[in-house]
C-alpha cells in the first residue's frame, strides 16, 4: 500500500478525482468541468460524509467519498477495556439499531469465551434484533423519501419508530443507547408489560406501513426519481462486498440468518425478499418487505419464547444475579473478579457475524487470555457499502446522488467506527 504524508493528502484526493477515466460525454453539456464539494455538513449525506464530485454541467463524472469525520477509534479503544465495558460503545456504532449491535458483540464474545446463553435470552435477542431492524429500516425508508421530496413519509415512519423506542424504554430503560445485552444473556428479563407492548406494536404496524406505502408507491415523482437510478449488478455487488438489503436488491439471495443460522433462526419460518433490478427502487422495496418479514419473525418468537433464566450459569464469566450478590459470598467474589479483571477467555481468535439491518456486522476478536481483547476488528456494513458510491453515482445527476446515498442507507457512526 502506498503511504502518503499529511501534506500530500489533499493533492492525492484531487489526483484521484482527476485521474478517474472520464469517457462519458453528454450531449449539450457545458464545456467546462467543475469540482463540487458535497458535505461533510450536508443535510442529505446522512451524517458527516464528504463527497468530492467532478461535474460536467450537472452530470457526475467522478466521485471520491472521504470518510473518517466521525472516527472515534473504537477498535483501538476496545483493546484497553474489558469485554463487558465495551458493550455501551457498540450502541454508538450503528446508532439507529443499537440493540442489534449489542447482540452482535455479545455473541462474538460468547463464541470466544465458549458461553452458551439460555434459550429465553436467545429468544429475547431475536425479538430485539428484529425490532431494531424495523426501526432502522423505517428511518431508511423515511429518509430516502425525504431526500427525494416526500417529507410526510419521514414523519410517519418516525412515528412508528417512536413506538419501538417506547418499547425499549420499558424493556431496558433507555430509548436510544440501550446497552441491553450482557455477556451470557441479557441485562434483565423481559417484563410482561414490554412483551404486551411488542404484541400491540406488531398488530398495528402493518396497516400503518401500508398507509405510508400508499403515499409513495404509486407516486410518479418518487418512482421516477428512483427507478433505474444507481444500478449495480449482482456481480459488482458481490465484488464490492455488499451485504444486507443492498445486496438483496441486486438479486442475490444472501442472508446470514439463513446462510449461517445463529440464535434460533433455523426454527423460524420467514422469507428473504429479493429484487433483481439493483437500483434505488429495488433497495427501497427490499427494506419495506423486510420489515414485514420481521413482524412475522417477532410473532413466531413471541409464541415460542420459553420461560426461564436470562443469564447463563457460568460463574467465572457471567455476572451473577443481583439478589445473589447481596446475600452470597461466592457471587460477591465473582462480581468483584469479573469487574476488576475481566472474563479472561482462552487464547484464540474468532470471527462472528450477524445480519444487522445494514448488512453483515462482524467482530473479529483475538484473545491472549487476558481480560481485554488483544485485537478487535469491526467489519461494519456501512463502510463496505459506501465503497460502491463512486461506481453508482457515475453518469447521474447531482440530485440523484442524494437519492443513491439514501438508498444505500449508510450510518456514519458505523462507517467511521
Amino acid at each position: 500500500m502506498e503511504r502518503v504524508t499529511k501534506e500530500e493528502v489533499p493533492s492525492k484526493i484531487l489526483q484521484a478525482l482527476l485521474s478517474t477515466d472520464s469517457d462519458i460525454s453528454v450531449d449539450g453539456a457545458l464545456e467546462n468541468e467543475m469540482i463540487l464539494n458535497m458535505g461533510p455538513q450536508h443535510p442529505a449525506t446522512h451524517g458527516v460524509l464528504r463527497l468530492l464530485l467532478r461535474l460536467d454541467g450537472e452530470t457526475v463524472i467522478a466521485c471520491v467519498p472521504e470518510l473518517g469525520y466521525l472516527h472515534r477509534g473504537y477498535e483501538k479503544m476496545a483493546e484497553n477495556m474489558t469485554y463487558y465495558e465495551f458493550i455501551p460503545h457498540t450502541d454508538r456504532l450503528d446508532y439507529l439499531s443499537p440493540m442489534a449491535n449489542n447482540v452482535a458483540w455479545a455473541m462474538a464474545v460468547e463464541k470466544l469465551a465458549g458461553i452458551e446463553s439460555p434459550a429465553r435470552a436467545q429468544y429475547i435477542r431475536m425479538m430485539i434484533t428484529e425490532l431494531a431492524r424495523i426501526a432502522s429500516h423505517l428511518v431508511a425508508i423515511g429518509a430516502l423519501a425525504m431526500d427525494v421530496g416526500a417529507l410526510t413519509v419521514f414523519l410517519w415512519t418516525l412515528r412508528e419508530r417512536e413506538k419501538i423506542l417506547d418499547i425499549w424504554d420499558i424493556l431496558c430503560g433507555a430509548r436510544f443507547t440501550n446497552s441491553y445485552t450482557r455477556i451470557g444473556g441479557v441485562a434483565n428479563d423481559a417484563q410482561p408489560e414490554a412483551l404486551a407492548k411488542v404484541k400491540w406494536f406488531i398488530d398495528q404496524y402493518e396497516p400503518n406501513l401500508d398507509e405510508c406505502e400508499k403515499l409513495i408507491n404509486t407516486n410518479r415523482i418518487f418512482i421516477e426519481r428512483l427507478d433505474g437510478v444507481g444500478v449495480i449488478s449482482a456481480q459488482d455487488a458481490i465484488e464490492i462486498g455488499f451485504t444486507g438489503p443492498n445486496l438483496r436488491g441486486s438479486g442475490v439471495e444472501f442472508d446470514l440468518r439463513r446462510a449461517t443460522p445463529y440464535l434460533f433462526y433455523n426454527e423460524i419460518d420467514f422469507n428473504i425478499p429479493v429484487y433483481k433490478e439493483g437500483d434505488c427502487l429495488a433497495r427501497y422495496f427490499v427494506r419495506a418487505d423486510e420489515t414485514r418479514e420481521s413482524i412475522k419473525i417477532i410473532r413466531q418468537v413471541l409464541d415460542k419464547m420459553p420461560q426461564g433464566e436470562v443469564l447463563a450459569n457460568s460463574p467465572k464469566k457471567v455476572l451473577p444475579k443481583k439478589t445473589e450478590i447481596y446475600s452470597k459470598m461466592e457471587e460477591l467474589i465473582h462480581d468483584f473478579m469479573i469487574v476488576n479483571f475481566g472474563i479472561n477467555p482462552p487464547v484464540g481468535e474468532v470471527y462472528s457475524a450477524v445480519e444487522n439491518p445494514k448488512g453483515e456486522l462482524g467482530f473479529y476478536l483475538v484473545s491472549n487470555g487476558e481480560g481485554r481483547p488483544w485485537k478487535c476488528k469491526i467489519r461494519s456494513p456501512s463502510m463496505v457499502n459506501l465503497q460502491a458510491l463512486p461506481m453508482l453515482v457515475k453518469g447521474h445527476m447531482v440530485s440523484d446522488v442524494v437519492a443513491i446515498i439514501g438508498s444505500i442507507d449508510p450510518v456514519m457512526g458505523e462507517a467511521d467506527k
Partner: protein
Amino acid sequence: MSVKRREKDLTLLEKIYIPEIVKGLSLTLKSMFKPKFTLKYPEEKFIPPASYRGRPVLVQEKDGHERCVACGLCSRVCPSLAIEVQAAETELEKERYPEKFEINMIRCIFCGFCEEVCPEEAIVMSKDYEMAFTNREEAIYGKDKLLVPVEQLQDRIDFLRKYK
C-alpha cells in the same frame, strides 16, 4: 402486501398525478383528525417506567447514612470514567463510607453499569432526566446532590430485585 410497481407499470391515472395529489392530501387530512401522537413536553411531563435509567443516585438509609461502603466497584466499571470515590473509616457497622463521592454528569452515559455491579444496592438509577448546567463545575455532583432517601427509589429497587 401492497403491489410493487415500477415506472412502466403505472396506470394512466397515476401518471396524470392529480389523483395522486388528491389521495395524498386526503390521507394527510385524515391524520389531522386522529389523536395526537406527540407529548406537549414542558407542560406535560414524561413519566418513566420503573426500568428507566435516569440520573444515578446514592441510596440514603432512613437513619440518614448512605448505604455505600466505598468499595469502588462502580468507579472501576464505569465505561466513561465518570465516578470518583474516596473511602474513609467510620464507627458504623459497615466500617467504611465514601468520604467523597462524585459523579461527573457531563461524562455519565446512563448505561447503568454502576448500579448493576454494586454489591450493596447503594447506587441506583433514578427517574430524574431533566439535567441542565450552565458551567462545568456545576455538573460535578457531590454527595449533597446524589443522596436520595430510599423511599423515593423503592420501585426501582423492586425492579432490580425482580428482573436483574
